[in-house]
């Protein structure tokens, strides 16, 4: 079989003194779209951040495109959408300026060329934000913000897209737009690993779902069929009568 694009074997990681990943196995093949599901605090973000090298593994193995992560340098092949970070900072910046940062994976320390500027516009067209090119990111809504962060990852024309809750705060109509954008990426051969809480309009695109609970994989296979509150194993139960055995007590207010 071909080398997996992402291969995580027996991965363990801790944040502070707390073990957050407790032996996660995850393999993503070229061209696959894999959804990572699980309740708040189950370790989805940590797993994804470990894959992009932002959380050190305390054990296990991680390979990207067949290279051990430690020696992986080809970051232009990877596009990353972090969870709910804000694109706003202490100084105003336009949508174009923020998205152009995604292009640095290719230009590195070199100059920007015409192709780079065109890629930025194309990425914004894909997420339906091309008309806001010159607007300040401070003047965007939460969902628009999220779409700018997705465009930033797309600007580098990556082979592997890693997205942490890309649909958070995005309305259904725009989720459909993003699903279409993702479909185009997959059609040109991209591989996708994305953290989701609901499959929503992405459902038809998803080949496989991996469900985490308390830092362990509890399901790896077909995406859950019925899409609803209770469909996902280990899904967030926020209502008062939730089965207390299924989850440690969690109010859902702070996570």
């Amino acid at each position, binding site marked *: 079989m071909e080398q997996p694009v992402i291969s995580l074997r027996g991965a363990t990681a801790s944040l502070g003194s707390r073990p957050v990943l407790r032996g996660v196995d995850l393999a993503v093949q070229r061209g696959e779209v894999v959804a990572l599901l699980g309740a708040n605090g189950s370790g989805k973000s940590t797993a994804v951040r470990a894959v992009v090298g932002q959380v050190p593994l305390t054990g296990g193995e991680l390979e990207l495109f067949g290279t051990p992560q430690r020696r992986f340098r080809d970051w232009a092949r990877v596009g990353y959408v972090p969870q709910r970070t804000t694109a706003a*900072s202490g100084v105003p910046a336009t949508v174009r300026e923020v998205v152009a940062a995604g292009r640095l994976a290719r230009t590195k*320390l070199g100059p920007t060329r015409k192709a780079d500027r065109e890629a930025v516009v194309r990425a914004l067209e894909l997420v339906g934000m091309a008309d806001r090119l010159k607007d300040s990111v401070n003047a965007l809504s939460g969902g628009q913000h999220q779409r700018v962060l997705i465009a930033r990852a797309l600007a580098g024309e990556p082979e592997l897209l890693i997205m942490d809750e890309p649909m958070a705060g995005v309305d259904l109509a725009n989720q459909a737009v993003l699903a279409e954008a993702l479909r185009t990426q997959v059609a040109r051969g991209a591989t996708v690993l994305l953290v989701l809480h609901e499959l929503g309009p992405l459902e038809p695109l998803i080949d496989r779902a991996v469900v985490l609970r308390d830092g362990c994989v509890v399901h790896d296979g077909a995406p859950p069929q019925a899409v609803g509150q209770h469909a996902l194993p280990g899904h967030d139960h926020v209502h008062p009568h939730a089965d207390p055995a299924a989850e440690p007590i969690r109010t859902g207010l702070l996570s």
Partner: protein
Amino acid sequence: MEILDLPFMQRALLAAFLVGITAPAIGIYLVQRRQALMGDGIGHVALTGVGLGFLLNTSPVWVATAVCVLGAVVMELIRSYGKARGDIALAMLFYGGMAGGVMLMSLSSTGSSANLTTYLFGSITTVSQQDIVAICILAAFVVLTTIGLRRQLFAICQDEEFARVTGLPVRLLNLLVAVTAAVTVTVAMRVVGLLLVSALMVIPVAASQQIARSFATTFAMAVAVGVLVTLSGTVTSYYVDVPSGATIVLMAIGVFIALTAVATPLARRRADRTAEAERCTLRPEADVQV
């Protein structure tokens, strides 16, 4: 203009001009990263360098540069490995630097409290030929870094984690920002003084933010404001005989207030124009999607 015929004023104006460019140019990245007071910290540490320079009887500019760079690198390491007590460590560094400077200065035979004041609050008209050479070289480094690497520095200050995933040498660039800030402090110390250096890194940026919408415009306007206030402050201090550093900083605050006053009606006019362009219309036949 007679003022331009005086060699010491020529040097003063050149130094002021260079400070006007460099301080906001590096300051914008510090503000972007919400580290606006870093310049202040380096300024405190620089005093130890100045004291050391006096004690060793060498040019305070170069010794201060070396000490500042060292201090800034330590600050950056504390920030990036940021553990819970990082703020305490920084406080030690700041006040240790200040106290060390005062101590070294009093130990040296040439240093006096008058000299100390010169470095704390700036004394632009005493900039020597030697100083100006150092200032030019250091300013060139700052300008090349802040403009040449603007896209990369923007990215690391905007979203450091994302920048790391693009494969940029983020740790190196962070150190470069720290070193550049340190160098800027020594460029500016003769003009505005160590205690007011940070003001010139922050206020022009804050002022131009009031009306700019993009990073590029903010950058350009901040540098323009910087040059405007340093040059006019220097000229004013020559004619009125007031300290240059304080004049420059007060002028910068004046520009900030003026731009803030302009910004509010400007934003309202922009909003009005858009509102007129697209009034809400109730269209019952429209496809309502949620």
